[in-house]
């Protein structure tokens, strides 16, 4: 029997549709998610299947709609907010950080905010600096938020179903370049646990830890490296908060070399946390080379295609980064 293959966008839509079918408290709200089907086509036909009450188009007011989701969640609904581009979460940081993330703790534990916030993240579409950021670092740093970055259709569905089920606010940063990529996704509802990293490939020479769109890029790089006789382990943390260091530490104890790959600017980016944890031990004792970070440049994302490509790690950068690490340069 051949495995069913669907796109990342379809996987997300399927997860939402199944959750809405099985739980009447689940609903969606966001800009242009109705008849338009979502800026990236994610909500698609959900509007036609579930109607305008549960697939709720909103005026352009990110703070308001995230706040509305917080309020609905507080009284027992399970809202899924779509923010059209993750960059626009900048408008909703108060509701995300000062409200959603803190309410359960700050108000003493009786109330909670079972809300999911999904947003397309990342560069690569020529949309320039205000539509291309990778802002996971902000959210991962905030106690009270869980943060997941699905890197494949399979993860997209499973992580989203976990997020919807979670009684806490979960930020799901999807990657624009992944929406049209395909992969096997089971039809039934299944959950990918939040807080568990995934080892995608095992190799003895070096450990690559990558997030978001860098995961598939790193896997491709690993395949090329393998042709050159370099065998890389590739690990996707999947969840940035909480972070599962187990497989990363284990792998480094085998390989002694680690390269951390993220699209976001390097300075004070999420991946520094992994470097920091390694530096605190135990993995530091296994290192035969310093840690290597391969990250976005510390610049806003430019428009021109050649500039945009230049500022985030591309396949050849990952390959040559790994080669450099193997050569100790």
């Amino acid at each position, binding site marked *: 029997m051949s495995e069913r293959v669907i796109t990342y966008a379809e996987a997300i839509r399927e997860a939402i549709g199944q959750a809405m079918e099985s739980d009447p408290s689940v609903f969606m709200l966001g800009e242009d998610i109705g008849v338009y089907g979502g800026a990236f086509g994610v909500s698609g036909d959900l509007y036609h299947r579930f109607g305008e009450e549960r697939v709720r188009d909103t005026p352009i007011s990110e703070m308001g709609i995230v706040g509305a989701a917080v309020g609905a969640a507080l009284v*027992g609904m399970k809202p899924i907010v779509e923010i059209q581009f993750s960059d626009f979460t900048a408008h909703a940081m108060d509701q995300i950080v000062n*409200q959603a993330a803190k309410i359960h703790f700050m108000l003493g534990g009786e109330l909670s905010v079972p809300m999911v916030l999904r947003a397309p993240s990342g560069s690569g579409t020529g949309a320039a600096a205000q539509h291309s950021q990778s802002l996971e670092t902000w959210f991962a740093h905030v106690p009270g938020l869980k943060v997941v970055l699905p890197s494949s259709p399979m993860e997209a569905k499973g992580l989203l179903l976990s997020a919807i089920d979670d009684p806490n606010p979960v930020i799901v940063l999807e990657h624009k370049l992944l929406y049209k990529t395909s992969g096997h996704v089971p039809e039934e509802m299944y959950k990918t646990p939040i807080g568990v990293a995934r080892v995608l490939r095992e190799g003895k020479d070096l450990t690559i830890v990558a997030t978001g769109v860098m995961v598939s890029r790193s896997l491709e790089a690993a395949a090329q490296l393998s042709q050159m006789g370099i065998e890389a382990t590739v690990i996707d943390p999947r969840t940035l908060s909480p972070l599962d260091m187990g497989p990363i530490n284990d792998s480094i104890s085998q390989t002694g070399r680690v390269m951390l790959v993220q699209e976001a600017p390097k300075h004070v980016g999420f991946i520094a946390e992994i470097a920091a944890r390694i530096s605190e031990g135990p993995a530091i004792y296994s290192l035969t080379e310093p840690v290597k970070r391969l990250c976005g440049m510390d610049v806003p994302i430019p428009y021109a295609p050649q500039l945009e490509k230049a500022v985030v790690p591309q396949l050849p950068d990952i390959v040559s980064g790994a080669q450099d690490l193997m050569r100790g340069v």
Partner: protein
Amino acid sequence: MATITPLLPPAAGKVSDDKASAMAALESLLAIRFFEEAVDGMFARGLMHGTMHLSIGQEAVATGVCAALRQTDFITSTHRGHSHCIAKGADLTRMMAELLAKQTGYCRGRGGSMHIADAKTGNLGANGIVAGGIPIAAGAALAQKLKKTDNVVVSFFGDGATNEGAFHEALNLASVWDLPVIFVCENNKYGMSFSTAKSMKVERISERAAAYAMPGVTVDGNDVDAVYEATKQAVDRARAGQGPTLIECVTYRHKGHSKSDKNLYRTKEEIDFWKTKDPVGKFETLLIEKGILTKEQAEQITENVRNEIRNAITEAQAAPDSDPAELLSSVFRAVN
């Protein structure tokens, strides 16, 4: 546990016409006043920590509004939230315990004055962010609509909050979705030190409702009856699916904005003038004048409420301090 008689609407007409409703309202006014005078005193004596914002002078707003609500209705509140919390029916001991940073406080000592919430009475929480509760109220109202309940949500906020983007976005959402929410602005003429005369050009904050094609009314916020009546109308509209209303309650805070306020921005004359319009005394006098209560009965109520506050303090002080050991495990609700 220290509580007062829950507010209840009059059988018909005004709160001050109906004995049971009027007595409960008087209790509420007094409880807010005495609760806050007590914490003000404890603060001054160094027995309390942090900062706090008192509603002394504004008690009629919360009281008049909550008299029009059911326990299953919801509210969102503000940094100046004791009055809303009490009027919605909170346990005074747990409130006091929270201010005293006790394990038995509403927030287990994690929130303090600015974050008291009470799931049981539908209080979705005070809020340290000006206007932060307004979109949340819209969302709670959206949930009522989706769940097809006939509960309503009241969002309390100040005059200053109406200059925040959150106010605008939330009112617009409530308007276009016909949500069962009532926006109650306590216009006490200042956002911290900045007067409404300087922070906005409209004469009346209720004029802002027109931007959302929503009814807007202005009432005397020191008059329980006036506040109740406006709220009742708005609640009726909301329960009937006719959407939101903005109610402006004009009032005044007698005390400074917070403990650190030197009151440089308003005159003694202005403060004294407003003290003559004190909502608590005014309502008590009205009831006696109307013959709803005798002076003796009023004194008795006063004494009872004082005792409740004293009990609240005693009980709260006896409670254990909040516990650092449980902090790390309290950030997230456990996943089933």
